[in-house]
């Protein structure tokens, strides 16, 4: 994680007056507009609480505003947002003691329609993801919402790639088993 910061920091240049300049750094309002869906969605998929997700998303952007001087490039901003949002999501769930880690057995059964339509199955899967254990949940969100590679997820969360692999594998196993059980057929 630190290494990534340093790598991204290297893209910044220093002018004759000693003031840091960054080529093509968008302004704050543009960044909010461009990345609000990403930040909000990570929080939404993790917390499954729209109000909490919006509040924390606002806090993340305010923290970005306070740390604006440290931003080196557009790429750095995205990396920073993903990292801070992921950690804030975990903190928020712990602090509020949202009962998201309830047993998968306790998750509501899909309706008859959910068994038929993919869109309803998607909604069911979203709920299932939100009920996964903390570590599995955040890696699944970063992998399937953000489409990040294992190495990128490891950088964002500051964990080993092997841990990311294990957590994704376990999360998928759990989701497959539960979905298969609900649908009454094997899921590949």
């Amino acid at each position, binding site marked *: 994680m630190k290494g990534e910061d340093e790598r991204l920091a290297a893209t910044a240049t220093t002018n004759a007056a000693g003031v840091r300049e960054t080529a093509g750094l968008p302004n704050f309002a543009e960044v909010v507009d461009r990345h609000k869906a990403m930040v909000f969605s990570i929080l939404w998929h993790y917390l499954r609480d729209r109000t909490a997700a919006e509040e924390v998303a606002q806090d993340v952007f305010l923290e970005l505003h*306070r740390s604006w001087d440290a931003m080196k490039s557009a790429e750095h901003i995205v990396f920073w947002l993903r990292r801070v949002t992921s950690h804030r999501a975990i903190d928020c769930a712990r602090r509020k003691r949202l009962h998201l880690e309830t047993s998968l057995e306790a998750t509501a059964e899909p309706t008859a329609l959910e068994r038929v339509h993919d869109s309803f199955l998607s909604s069911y899967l979203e709920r299932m993801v939100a009920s996964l254990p903390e570590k599995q949940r955040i890696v699944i969100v970063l992998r399937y919402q953000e489409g990040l590679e294992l190495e990128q997820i490891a950088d964002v969360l500051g964990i080993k790639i092997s841990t990311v692999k294990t957590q994704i594998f376990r999360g998928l196993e759990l989701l497959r088993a539960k979905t298969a059980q609900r649908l009454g057929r094997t899921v590949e």
Partner: protein
Amino acid sequence: MTPFEEQLKQAMARREPAEDFARRVLERADREGGQQAESGGRRVGGKRVWFSALSGWFHSPRVLRFSAAAALLAVSGGVVFQQHEQSERGEAAKEKLLTAVRIAGVKLRQVHRHVLEVETPEVEQ
């Protein structure tokens, strides 16, 4: 990617926050910036320079290493001082005990002498 993972990817599609989300963030950022300006300190890009510099100084590896060394020194100094104190207290107690033994010895000798004085005339008779 397996069909299940494709389905999962679809399910995890990004969503938009409320329409006025960006406006609220920018308003809060402006308010926060205004409050910081009122509370003093030169600001660059919405952040106070002195605070940033101080925070950076406290988090620099050299300061952290120095703090760790100072803490280690303080702890080991405390342990040595405590051992020294204990040793001094032990020595003082030993001295007191020796004095008490010496006093007791003198008294014992006095009593012994007195007993001999009392016993001697009886023997002579």
